[in-house]
């Protein structure tokens, strides 16, 4: 697998789109991924792992965490990795789960984890889609690379600090890693299968034995063998035999009992038949008696039947008589009613006639005429009233007009006043300003002066301050000078003293050489009365020199101080002069504080400015004045016009009033009011109408009453006629009925009524009589037959017969039961015993199989002296191969000192082993556990081991060539020599044609490895680019 191109977009710390072209690196290059901590070096490996498998190289950062916070929300996080397997180039494109902006509308939507695997053609274009979707892509990648993610991480991408786990882990951990790498789960499955099989066999065996025990126990119990009796198969069979014999005997007994029961049964049946016949005879006799008792009643009913038959034909006559009577009654009632009606009609006719007479009297007629006349008069008045109304309207209009005009006149006058006032005000302002302008120049002058004064005052204040400073400095300089003088004096004295001492010493030295009698070198005398005595310390030349130097220094200092003092004095004088000069110029303003003066100056300046502003407004004001004058004239003209209008309106008003007065005189007073005419007219008309109508109504009523009366009388007459007819009919019908009754034999109508029966009742009675006769005949016949049947028989004793039969049946049943039980038992037990035999056979077989498999499983599991399980056995051999290769490299890297070996003797008999790693130190000739290597040595060993593992996996994985390997960190723990050696190893890898990528921040590596992938971190994300020579 050889990387061709890696594209990372918004992935990890890379906010933008980084494209890394691995083909830019020379073949077999060792390249360094370099950059500061956190810049994104490991992310490059993460991207490769993630792109292929959807997991990152340390399996610590999930895909969803890989999106950078610094990326633009519109930028999609994605990884595209082009890689070559042999000749064919593949591309995997993976997008992790993330939020991205919706394509339509606002807001974010969740982008799910997606991946696609393509095949590329020679131009680098996607030619085929090999797999789509996370699951299929994973499967396709694993299939092509022959590695799953754990293997990839162990073998191709060696992540930070992780590949040491192969070196330092325990057997179990190493077993897991190697198992994944070499795919030896198959052997573990064999182990497990054997173990499962053995344990399942054991369980089966146990279960089988338990069942056997149970079954034989049950069988023994059933056979009646006591709990402690023999349970083995032969004894059980013997017991069964005995049981069988008992069964045969029981069968015979059963047969005998059955036959006895049959006989008794037959006897019982005969007895029952006889008893039935006797019973029958008794019943027949009873029936006959009953019928005889009912005979009397039946006779009475027969009689009734006969009378009813006689009364039937008389019915129609009776009903006719009744009907006629009713008709008569009705006619009489009607006559009475009609009589009453006639009386009432008479009365009302009389009344109506009277009313009519009233309505048509003379009075009424006169009234009617008067009303008609009034109406006429009112009509004639109408036109005059109309003109009056018109005149009134004109007046109203004139009034409104007048009022309106008066209002307008008032407005105009007010306007005039306003304008005039404005004009006056403007004029006043204008005059004011003109006056003020006069004083402009004066104000200017004042302001300038004040400013100047203020400035001078300020400089005076500054000069004062300067003067104070100068005074202080001068005093200080004087001080210094005085001190220097003192110092000088002291030094001078010291020097003199020293010189004196020296001179004195000289004298002492000379004195020391004096001998009595020898001449003194100074004066030549041979006597020396008082030679100079040695005194204290004689100052050396050096001392003198020193003192001289000091004195010189002091002198120098004094001179300097003097100079300074003079300077300061001069400065002081200058400052004073300056101050005085300024004070003079200021004159009387001197005492005033500068702040107040400044304020005055400011005020004057403000005032000046104000004045100037105002003068500027003069031309505008003039213009305004002109305008206002114009407006005033206009307003006055308008006012005058309005006045004229008002006068005209007033005149019109007066004219209208006069017209009205004239018109009113032509109209009667009660009608002058507007609308009075109309009202009067209406009232009169209404009255007239009313009177007419009343008259008509009275006439109609009278006519109607008369007619009603006539009608009533006619009706009464006919009703009376009808009554007479009905009476005749009634009497006839009654006579007919009476005659018929007599001929039929009924004494009177009452007797007839008694005898009448409906046809249904008659039929009923008939039926009853007939039935009774028939029944009586039947009953007698039955009695005869029954008597015949019992002629030869005797009455049986049923209870006794029944008892005997029951006893016999019972006995038979008991015997049958006993036999059945014994038979069933025997059969069941036979089956059980067969079962038992089968089980015993099975048990023996299982035992054998378990022995075999159990042994194999135990051995495979590691239950053997070497504590080596089957899988680990295979792995151990593989591990040996790996260690072989690793040691070759490690020997080189450690200058012949270390090699890796596998421990073959188990350290601890209780724990699983077989894959422990030791390191053999040639310098001491001893072997010690691999975990005891130091950090740097351990790194080299782990590196050798990892590379060896990669080689061996490749060998076994069927020739997938690993053309690239990446190593993440670990170099920081090496010293320079070890680092050099490690680099040599890596370069050697490169010479095989492999691409070796190293991630490290160690700066020494940066100098040594000239192909680099520089990762730079910035505030807005990281960038990565290849740097090649």
């Amino acid at each position, binding site marked *: 697998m050889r990387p061709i191109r890696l594209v990372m977009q918004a992935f990890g710390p890379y906010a933008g789109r980084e494209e890394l072209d691995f083909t830019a690196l020379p073949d077999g290059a060792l390249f360094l991924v370099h950059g500061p901590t956190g810049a994104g070096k490991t992310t490059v490996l993460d991207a490769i792992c993630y792109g292929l498998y959807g997991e990152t190289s340390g399996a610590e950062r999930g895909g969803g965490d890989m999106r950078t916070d610094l990326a633009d929300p519109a930028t999609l996080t994605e990884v595209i990795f082009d890689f070559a397997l042999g000749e064919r180039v593949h591309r995997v494109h993976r997008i992790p789960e993330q939020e991205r902006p919706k394509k339509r509308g606002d807001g974010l939507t969740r982008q799910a984890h997606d991946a696609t695997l393509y095949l590329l053609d020679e131009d680098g274009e996607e030619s085929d889609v090999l797999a789509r979707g996370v699951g299929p892509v994973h499967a396709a990648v694993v299939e092509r690379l022959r590695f799953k993610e754990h293997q990839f991480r162990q073998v191709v991408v060696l992540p930070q600090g992780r590949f040491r786990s192969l070196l330092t882990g325990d057997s179990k951990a190493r077993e897991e890693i190697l198992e994944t790498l070499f795919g030896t789960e198959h052997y573990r499955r064999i182990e497990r299968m054997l173990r499962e*099989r053995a344990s399942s066999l054991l369980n089966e065996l146990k279960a089988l034995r338990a069942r056997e025990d149970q079954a034989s126990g049950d069988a023994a119990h059933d056979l009646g063998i006591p709990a402690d009796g023999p349970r083995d198969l032969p004894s059980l069979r013997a017991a069964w035999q005995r049981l069988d014999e008992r069964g045969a005997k029981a069968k015979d007994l059963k047969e005998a009992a059955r036959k006895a029961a049959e006989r008794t049964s037959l006897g019982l049946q005969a007895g029952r038949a006889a008893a039935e016949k006797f019973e029958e005879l008794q019943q027949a006799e009873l029936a006959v008696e009953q019928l005889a008792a009912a005979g009397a009643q039946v006779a009475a009913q027969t009689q009734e039947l006969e009378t009813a038959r006689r009364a039937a034909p008389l019915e129609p006559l009776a009903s006719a008589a009744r009907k006629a009577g009713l008709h008569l009654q009705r006619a009489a009632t009607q006559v009475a009613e009609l009589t009453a009606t006639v009386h009432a009609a008479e009365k009302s006719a009389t009344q109506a006639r009277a009313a009519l007479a009233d309505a048509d009297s003379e009075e009424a007629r006169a009234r009617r005429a008067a009303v008609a006349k009034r109406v006429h008069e009112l009509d004639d008045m109408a036109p005059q009233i109309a003109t009056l109304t018109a005149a009134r309207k004109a007046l109203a209009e004139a009034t409104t007009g007048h009022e309106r005009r008066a209002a307008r006149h008032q407005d105009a006058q007010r306007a005039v006043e306003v304008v005039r006032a404005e004009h006056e005000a403007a004029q006043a302002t204008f005059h004011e300003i003109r006056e003020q302008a006069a004083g402009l120049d004066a104000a200017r002058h004042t302001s300038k002066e004040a400013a100047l004064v203020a400035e001078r005052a300020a400089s005076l204040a500054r000069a004062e301050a300067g003067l104070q400073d100068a005074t202080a400095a001068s005093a200080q300089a004087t001080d210094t000078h005085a001190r220097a003088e003192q110092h000088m004096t002291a030094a001078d004295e010291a020097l003199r003293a020293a010189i004196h001492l020296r001179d004195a010493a000289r004298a002492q030295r000379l004195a020391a050489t004096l001998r009595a009698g020898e001449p003194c070198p100074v004066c030549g005398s041979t006597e020396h009365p008082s030679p100079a005595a040695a005194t204290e310390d004689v100052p050396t030349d050096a001392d003198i020199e020193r003192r001289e130097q000091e004195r010189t220094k002091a002198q120098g200092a004094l001179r300097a101080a003097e100079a300074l003092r003079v300077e300061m004095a001069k400065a002081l004088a200058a400052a004073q002069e300056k101050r005085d000069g300024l004070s003079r110029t200021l004159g009387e303003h001197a005492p005033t504080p500068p702040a107040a003066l400044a304020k005055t100056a400011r005020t004057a300046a403000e005032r000046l400015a104000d004045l100037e502003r105002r003068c500027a407004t003069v031309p505008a004001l003039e213009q305004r004045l002109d305008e206002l004058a114009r407006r005033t004239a206009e307003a006055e003209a308008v006012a005058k016009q309005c006045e004229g209008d008002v006068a005209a309106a007033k005149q019109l008003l007066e004219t209208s009033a006069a017209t009205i007065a004239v018109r009113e005189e032509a109209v009667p007073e009660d009608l002058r009011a507007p609308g009075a005419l109309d009202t009067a007219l209406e009232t009169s008309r209404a009255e007239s109408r009313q009177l007419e109508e009343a008259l008509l109504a009275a006439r109609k009523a009278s006519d109607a009453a008369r007619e009603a009366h006539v009608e009533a009388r006619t009706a009464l007459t006919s009703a009376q006629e009808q009554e007479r007819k009905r009476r005749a009919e009634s009497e006839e019908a009654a006579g007919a009925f009476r005659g018929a009754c007599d001929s039929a034999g009924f004494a009177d109508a009452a007797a007839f009524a008694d005898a009448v029966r409906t046809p249904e009742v008659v039929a009923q009675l008939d039926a009853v009589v007939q039935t009774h006769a028939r029944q009586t005949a039947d009953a007698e016949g039955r009695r005869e037959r029954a008597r015949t049947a019992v002629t030869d028989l005797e009455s049986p004793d049923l209870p006794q017969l029944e008892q005997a039969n029951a006893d016999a049946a019972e006995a038979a049943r008991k015997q049958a039961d006993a036999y059945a039980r014994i038979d069933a038992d025997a059969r069941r037990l036979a089956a059980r015993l067969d079962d038992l035999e089968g089980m015993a056979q099975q048990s023996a077989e299982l035992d054998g199989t378990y022995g075999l498999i159990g042994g194999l499983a135990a051995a495979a599991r590691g239950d053997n002296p070497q504590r080596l399980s089957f899988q680990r056995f*295979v792995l151990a051999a593989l591990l040996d191969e790996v260690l072989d290769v690793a040691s070759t490299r490690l020997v080189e890297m450690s200058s*012949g000192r270390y090699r890796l070996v596998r421990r073959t003797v188990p350290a601890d008999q209780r724990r699983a082993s077989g894959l422990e790693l030791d390191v053999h130190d*040639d310098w001491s000739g001893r072997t010690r556990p691999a975990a005891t290597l130091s950090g740097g040595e351990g790194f080299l060993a782990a590196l050798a081991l990892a590379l060896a593992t990669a080689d061996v996996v490749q060998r076994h994985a069927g020739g997938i060539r690993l053309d690239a390997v990446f190593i993440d960190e670990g170099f920081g723990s090496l010293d*320079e020599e070890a680092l050099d050696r490690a680099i040599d190893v890596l370069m050697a890898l490169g010479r095989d044609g492999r691409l070796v990528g190293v991630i490290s921040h160690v700066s020494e590596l940066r100098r040594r490895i000239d192909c680099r992938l520089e990762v730079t971190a910035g505030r807005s994300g990281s960038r990565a680019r290849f740097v090649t020579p």
Partner: protein
Amino acid sequence: MRFVHTSDWHLGRLFHGLHLTEDQAFVLDQLVELLDERQADALLVAGDLYDRAVPPPDAVRLLDDVLERITLGLGIPVIAIAGNHDSPERIGFGSRLFAGQGLHVVGPATAVPRTVRLADEHGPVHFHPLPYADPTEVRVALGAEDLRTHDDALRALINRCERDADDGARHVVLAHAFVAGGEPSESERTLSVGGAANVGADAFADFHYAALGHLHAPQRAGAEHIRYCGSLLKYSFNEATQRKGVLVVDLDAEGACHIEEVALRPKHDVRIIEGTLATLLERPPDGAAADDYLLARLTDTQALYDPMSKLRAVYPNLMQIERMARATPAATTGSAAGHLTKSDHDLFDAFFQEVTGAPLETEQGEALDEVLHDLELRRREATS
């Protein structure tokens, strides 16, 4: 003119974990004395003054001391260039300041290479110190885009040297490179991963003398006047047979060279001793001081117990042990490659034999086969 040509001091280097600064000081003392004795007119140091970009303080102190003694003490000008181990910027610190005192150090490569002009009684002698620079740095310095290899880079720099055919000067060039045909030792660093770092010797043909550095074995490189003087000390056991020292070169009026090799005696020699453990323990081989830096080649064939501490008792500065022939421990499990090609049954048989000491019996074999068959069925079902 007489100058001394030296190079590859590698001050601050570790030798199997041991700092060599004392040994280097010892040898450099001899160099200073030599310069004085032979009254040299100049010292040429052709690169790799330090072993690392950031050298340890002791090394810096040593270099400071040596240079001061030579330039200020003896008044002899020193011309030095940065090598591939040095950091050019750090080495070149203060070079303009030092030039006035006669210390000419060229660190980073510049567009116009520096020329150091000295003179003798016959006329001017111009020295052209060209520091080591990889092609990228040269590209940047010269502003030229088409320099790919070290060869291109060096030739470009040589072209920029100020030389007129008729200026009457003799020209000496200093360079730090791997000239094609040269013999490397174990202790040089590879200049380029991918190895296209070689430079053709003809590039130096026009100079009167080419003082080269980088290869640690003193040798000629294509011509008599193109020379490697070799490293100051033996820096790997591979160099145990080399003679370490400096070259004293006399350049006459016509520019012909007379070259003398002068050996420098180290405090501790670097040697390889060979023999069985017993013989070596008895007495040290001839001519060897017991405290030399040694590599012991043991010829014993059997396993040895703690050879390192035993030998160190006699040779306190023993750096490394090599075993010539050793018996490989018996492989108890046989070839693994063989394992994975066997069938499951055979493999289990091998395993069984290994752990119980006896092969599978027929019945056991049958039982095993049954289990394997079941497993196979189950696997087929799972994958179908």
